[in-house]
């Protein structure tokens, strides 16, 4: 078993251990343990960096369902490594931050269990080579994210946000699953590496395009791309460390990872190019445009995340064009976009993580994150301000922060793609830089809002919950480290580029020569470069828009709330619930008789219908054994007793009639050479009768049935039909033996099981499993009876529904 597989499982094991540790150790914050887990994993992955940079890859397989080719294969290449480092690295910082953010009154055991559960699932997604296993981990991230968003489950908004994200991401995941299965049908393998090695050979397959679309559905829902972005702002109900971790650095990057991972397979297709690029750009624009109008800092960050994810997505789309040209020098130009995408992926995690933590600090210290109430915090929280400024300016694409570099490369990408001359880019190509540029202006605007609205302007203490002051040092460490990274990457971008990004490029473009994939990152492109002027334009227009934002805020009113995807979501969910309630209520009456009627009607129609339709009924009494007079009498007595139960005047009569039936059955067992059965039946019948008598002592008197005549007739018809169908099947089965009885085997019981009593040998030896489970069932029934009687809810224990 390779350490890679262990690395995936490790967080899960830690997650299991945490609740126990949490109950044992109360003094130490349990987060330190979680942080240790995360940090160890980070070091573990960091040790792979030099070897991965040399172009090595690592893979190891543990068999899971080998007969279906589904195995737990961990595969580490450059692309996986970036994500793995982000997951564990940002994870460590976020946990460190959360230790100070969450008070020890919260149920921390639960929190860190979910968090590590999520971390393991996420590592599983990026390290799995087998798409089925990848899917399993993919859904696990959805589930753990659901649990984390609903961490404060007492709040209705948390529950709603969690439900929304689960519904959207899981339905996307289902689509992706179907896409994966289609891929399997086309290629006959579940392994991504093997599928990639076959890339290009199945592009003509009828399922190729559907598989691609379904896969993108999964990626877009997970990465909150337009129009599935609506879950991300609502997911901000989660505790801020969760938002910083899941919704900026890791989970939303899973979709992007998927797109990157499958670029070698689908890249070079015009549908892939236009969908990924187009949706990405649209998301970029819509996200930044919507972010500006938010008044909640966290919501603003949520929309900005949506927009930044769109930007990364579009760059992957543009980069995929390189595969259209195959292995040629032309294609290398376009791979730069992919390089920029990976670069921005890392950058975004750093500055967005820092910003989320800053917002968490502000929220934590002053008790609000409403922009209308905040202001003037710069003198009171200087360190927090510095970090916020670094993060925001990096997001806005200003030097000397890493966001500037990747933003410039993004502009380069959208500018060069217009000249590609493929995918009808001649007509639409010029639109790409324009959208990108306009979106960047809005990005600039909200970045400024975050800094200036929060930290400058008048300080309004009376509108805050608590007076502002710096948070404890521990809370500043994690965002501080990220902020340092933001600046560090700006000055030494090529360290990151050479060791981390270039190996990842090899994972995305395995067909292209590795030497061409490395892109030197430089901050200065000269005065002639279009990129620089675009950035300057962004700053000028952005600043103008920021200053005048009150004047043009009316444009947001042009889109009525009614037409948004959000209200579409709520509307369809509401209608769905309403209609399904109506439909369900129409037949789920809560009345046992109705349910039984459905079952019996189905039985009569389906089974009886089949018998009539196929005409299998046959009666053959020739093989019957003889009937003695005594048996005739017994049968008659039982029939009479059975029917009389229906007419019994008192419950005692009914019980006794039932006992007659039971003892009659016991007598038959004697006749049929079944001494064990007869003994058991007699005793059970006795005990049951005692039970009935005891229970009926407490139950109300057996009244005459007061059912309307009509439904009584219906009951009668149903009962008789059921009886007839039953008898016909039984007789038919008896007459036609389709195969030999297996009973002969058991008659060797003395040799096989050392028992002369065949029945008991079957019970205790041949079929001991049945008997064991039966014993367990009996025990459960006993516990059930005991607890039903002994445990009584106290009257005041009414369940309390919260807000």
């Amino acid at each position, binding site marked *: 078993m390779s350490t890679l597989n262990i690395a995936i499982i490790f967080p899960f094991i830690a997650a299991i251990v945490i609740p126990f540790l949490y109950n044992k150790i109360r003094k130490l914050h349990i987060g330190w343990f979680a942080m240790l887990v995360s940090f160890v994993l980070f070091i573990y992955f960091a040790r792979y960096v030099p070897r991965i940079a040399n172009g090595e890859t690592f893979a190891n397989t543990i068999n899971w369902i080998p007969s279906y080719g589904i195995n737990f294969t961990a595969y580490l290449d450059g692309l996986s490594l970036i994500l793995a480092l982000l997951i564990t690295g940002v994870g460590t910082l976020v946990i460190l931050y959360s230790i100070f953010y969450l008070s020890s009154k919260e149920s921390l055991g639960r929190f860190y269990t979910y968090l590590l559960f999520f971390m393991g699932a996420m590592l599983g997604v990026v390290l799995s080579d087998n798409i089925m296993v990848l899917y399993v981990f993919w859904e696990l991230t959805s589930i753990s994210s659901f649990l984390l968003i609903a961490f404060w489950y007492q709040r209705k908004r948390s529950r709603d946000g969690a439900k929304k994200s689960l519904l959207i991401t899981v339905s996307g995941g289902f689509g992706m699953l179907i896409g994966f299965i289609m891929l399997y049908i086309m290629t006959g393998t579940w392994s991504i590496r093997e599928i990639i090695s076959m890339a290009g050979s199945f592009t003509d397959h009828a399922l190729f395009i559907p598989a691609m679309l379904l896969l993108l559905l999964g990626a877009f829902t997970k990465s909150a791309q337009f129009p599935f972005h609506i879950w991300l702002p609502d997911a901000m109900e989660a505790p801020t460390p969760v938002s910083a971790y899941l919704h900026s650095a890791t989970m939303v990057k899973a979709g992007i990872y998927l797109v990157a991972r499958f670029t070698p397979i689908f890249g070079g297709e015009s549908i892939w190019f236009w969908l990924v690029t187009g949706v990405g750009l649209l998301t970029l624009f819509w996200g930044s445009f919507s972010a500006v109008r938010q008044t909640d800092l966290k919501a603003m960050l949520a929309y900005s995340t949506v927009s930044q994810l769109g930007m990364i997505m579009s760059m992957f789309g543009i980069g995929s064009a390189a595969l259209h040209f195959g292995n040629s020098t032309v294609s290398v130009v376009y791979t730069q976009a992919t390089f920029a995408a990976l670069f921005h992926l890392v950058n975004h995690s750093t500055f967005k993580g820092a910003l989320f933590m800053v917002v968490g600090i502000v929220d934590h210290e002053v008790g609000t994150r409403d922009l209308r109430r905040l202001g003037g915090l710069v003198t009171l929280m200087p360190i927090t301000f510095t970090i916020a400024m670094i993060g925001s300016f990096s997001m806005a694409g200003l030097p000397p922060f890493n966001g500037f570099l990747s933003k410039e490369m993004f502009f380069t990408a959208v500018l060069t793609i217009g000249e590609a001359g493929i995918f009808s880019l001649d007509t639409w190509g010029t639109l790409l830089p324009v959208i990108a540029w306009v979106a960047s202006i809005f990005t600039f605007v909200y970045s400024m809002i975050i800094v200036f609205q929060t930290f400058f302007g008048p300080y309004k203490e009376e509108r805050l919950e608590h007076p502002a002051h710096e948070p404890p040092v521990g809370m500043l460490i994690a965002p501080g480290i990220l902020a340092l990274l933001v600046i560090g990457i700006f000055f030494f971008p090529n360290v990151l580029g050479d060791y981390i990004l270039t190996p990842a490029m090899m994972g995305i473009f395995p067909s292209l020569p590795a030497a061409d994939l490395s892109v030197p990152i430089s901050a200065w492109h000269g005065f002639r470069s279009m990129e620089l002027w675009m950035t300057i334009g962004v700053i000028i227009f952005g600043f103008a828009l920021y200053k005048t934002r009150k004047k043009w805020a009316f444009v947001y009113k042009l889109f009525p709330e009614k037409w948004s995807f959000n209200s579409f979501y709520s509307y369809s969910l509401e209608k769905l619930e309403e209609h399904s309630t109506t439909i369900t209520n129409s037949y789920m009456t809560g009345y046992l008789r109705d349910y039984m009627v459905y079952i019996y009607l189905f039985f009569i129609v389906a089974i009886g219908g089949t018998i009539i339709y196929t005409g299998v009924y046959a009666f053959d*009494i020739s093989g019957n054994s003889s009937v003695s007079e005594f048996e005739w009498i017994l049968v008659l007595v039982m029939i009479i007793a059975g029917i009389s139960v229906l007419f019994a005047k008192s419950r005692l009569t009914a019980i006794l009639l039932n006992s007659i039936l039971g003892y009659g059955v016991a007598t038959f067992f004697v006749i049929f050479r079944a001494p064990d059965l007869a003994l058991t039946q007699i005793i059970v019948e006795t005990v049951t009768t005692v039970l009935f008598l005891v229970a009926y002592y407490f139950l109300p008197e057996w009244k005459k049935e007061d059912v309307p005549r009509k439904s009584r007739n219906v009951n009668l018809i149903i009962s008789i039909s059921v009886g007839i169908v039953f008898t016909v099947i039984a007789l038919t089965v008896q007459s036609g033996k389709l195969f030999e009885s297996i009973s002969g085997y058991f*008659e060797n019981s003395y040799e096989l099981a050392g028992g002369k009593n065949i029945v008991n040998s079957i019970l205790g030896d041949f079929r001991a499993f049945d008997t064991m489970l039966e014993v367990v069932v009996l025990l459960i029934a006993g516990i059930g009876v005991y607890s039903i009687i002994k445990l009584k809810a106290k009257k005041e224990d009414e369940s309390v529904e919260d807000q």
Partner: protein
Amino acid sequence: METLITILAGVLVTVATYLILSKSLIRVILGTAILSHAAHLLIMSMGSGLKNGSVPILDEGIGPPVDALPQALILTSIVISFAVTALSLVLAYRTYQETGTDKLDELRGIKHE
């Protein structure tokens, strides 16, 4: 004999069905008890020939045994149906204690309209 037993089981099934469809919880439970009797008779009659051999105990001096498999199945079933009956009886009893009724139409959980 098999046919006769099957018909007897059929009659019992009819009775049981009618009881299960009734309104009173006690009748329903009684119905399930009768239903299990019918099921036992049915399984019994499905073996390879009733009375067609000796008791299924291997000893010298007795002929070939009857089919032992249905017997093993029924033995399991008897005990399980005892457990089911006991549990449902107690459920009925507690329901009556809590709600004061054993009428199923009054025991609907959901409120309609």
